[in-house]
């Protein structure tokens, strides 16, 4: 009988990413979501807002092989237990349900920090941060970083209904102003985040919009930014199998600096993209097509 082995751990010099067996030290409900705090030595010290972690479900005999990726809500490099990482989990299926039911003391094999963080402006400009549902998770940490640099920060939280909002109180602590929208009007103003953006951008003279949430919402942020001649930095939530750049499943069409569209991995080249680089036209009905003019696209008629 071969003994059972846990999943691996890794911390290679210069890699700027680690794989650790993290320990759940707190798990608390937050609306319909679950807010998990994990001791994850090495991740907290390296992470910046906008980066994410990839969590394994169970041990090496788990039937769910693919990692689940979560944007990092906050980190504390010098907690009482060592560096901690906080994530917000929503029940999407058996894998996430297993994560959000973990008791304190449970172990989670975690890889992070992954992906490119939100770029922060050199000058103390006004910024609008927009989160859809629990997509708001990384924005409060980002708000703290921006305000330390002297930026005026407005946060907009939108969701289908009140229980799907995340971080309303935290937003009031982290931002100069918080605006809330719900589709059903159960909190804040009834409607979408895009309804309140034009007035907010104009009133604050914002130079940058940061956003995280579903693709349709991110597209609306980009359009609002474009109408006001400013830039949107959007963090996408594409499905990923590995999170580390080896599976090629999380690709999306993005223009490079020369204007050439390539299918790029959102885990390593993202998850944060400039809104004006994303080929929004390719996202149709829950799928993402390969634009005909993308590098290496099949010739017309060959697909």
């Amino acid at each position, binding site marked *: 009988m*071969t*003994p059972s*082995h846990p*999943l*691996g*751990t*890794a911390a*290679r010099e210069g*890699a*700027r*990413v680690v*794989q650790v067996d993290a320990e759940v030290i707190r798990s608390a409900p937050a609306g319909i979501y679950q807010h998990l705090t994990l001791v994850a030595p090495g991740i907290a010290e390296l992470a910046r807002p906008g980066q994410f972690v990839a969590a*394994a479900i169970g041990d*090496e005999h*788990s*039937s*769910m*092989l*693919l*990692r689940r990726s979560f944007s990092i809500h906050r980190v504390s490099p010098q907690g009482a237990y060592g560096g901690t990482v906080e994530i917000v989990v929503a029940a999407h299926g058996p*894998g996430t349900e297993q994560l959000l039911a973990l008791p304190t003391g449970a172990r989670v*094999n975690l*890889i992070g920090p992954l992906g490119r963080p939100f770029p922060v402006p050199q000058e103390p400009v006004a910024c609008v941060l927009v989160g859809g549902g629990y997509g708001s998770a990384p924005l409060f940490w980002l708000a703290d970083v921006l305000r330390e640099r002297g930026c005026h920060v407005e946060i907009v939280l939108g969701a289908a209904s009140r229980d799907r909002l995340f971080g309303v109180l935290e937003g009031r602590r982290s931002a100069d102003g918080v605006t809330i929208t719900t589709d059903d009007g159960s909190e804040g103003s009834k409607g979408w985040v895009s309804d309140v953006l034009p007035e907010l951008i104009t009133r604050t003279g914002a130079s940058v919009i940061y956003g995280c949430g579903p693709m349709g919402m991110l597209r609306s942020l980009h359009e609002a930014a474009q109408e006001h001649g400013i830039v949107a930095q959007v963090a996408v939530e*594409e*499905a990923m*199998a*590995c999170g*580390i*750049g*080896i*599976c*090629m*499943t*999380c*690709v*999306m069409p993005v223009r490079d600096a020369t204007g050439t569209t*390539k*299918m790029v991995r959102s885990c*390593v080249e993202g998850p944060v993209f400039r809104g004006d680089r994303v080929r929004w036209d390719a996202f149709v009905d*829950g*799928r*993402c*097509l*390969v634009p005909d003019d*993308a*590098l*290496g*696209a*099949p010739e017309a008629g*060959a*697909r």
Partner: protein
Amino acid sequence: MVDLSVDLAGVPLPSPMMTASGCAANGREMHRFIDITELGAFVTKSVKAAPVSGRPTPRMAETDSGMLNSIGLQGPGVAAFVEEDLAWLHSIGARVVVSIAGGTASEFAAVARRVVRSPYASAVAAIEVNISCPNVANRGLVFACEPSGSHKVITLVREEVPRGIPILAKLSPDVTDITEIAAAVVKAGAHGLTMINTLLGVAIDPVRLRPHLAATTGGLSGPAVRPVAVRAIWQVSAAMREGRVPAVPIVGAGGVRTGADALELLAAGATAVQVGTAAFNDPTAPLRVGRELADALDALGVDRLADVVGIAHEGGLR
């Protein structure tokens, strides 16, 4: 200390452990987690002559103990592969199995030529010819489904590859008789066989009730397919023992996640073992499985890995 060294068609490797093509990109990403020069060999993502965008998304669906993928051989094309990826692998001292693909037999040959004539050819331990990728627009382009197509690809590639670099043909289990394809490619000059590629599958989105993958079909991989890999290795290894297929080394691939899994493939007849989908779950898996394999052999009192290759055909350990 268990002796894990293997002879892959004349190429000595210190370890039987390899990555699997398409499951480790071209090395840099995995090298952040493990030293890929410690592998027996690093197997690159299949490269074609020109850049390939791959297929629309979703390209992936998790299934019980496995996954479906429909990446569609996304890649930079062989010129960029050689200058950026092979050059880097060469610079760190990795032993590399270069996986090549093509839409025609002559494309395979052109890609092979570019690789073996590059300044970095000394890093190339073998060429793996991916004649079995299921993610192509036309099922007729899966060369490994048909003996004469397979034979033609290997024949043309063989003309381009110098002696000393073995050619491995990667086979599909989705065929009526895998020993027939194996015989065809070995007779065409393949020095070894990699088995298995993924199995064709479909998953239906339970909410939209339409195929989950934008491309509809995808390749099934992961521990769920391991018994199919063991079966394919068993059948071809048995055919070699019976003289129906010329004897060449088999590189086992398919659902390996632990040392015990690797040992199954070896006992069925594999000389080396690739770890693919398990790396998505654990990027250290290709080396971790090697350590577990050494421990498992040690626990069984086996000193040399070579002593268990194909041992299941001989009544097992005594």
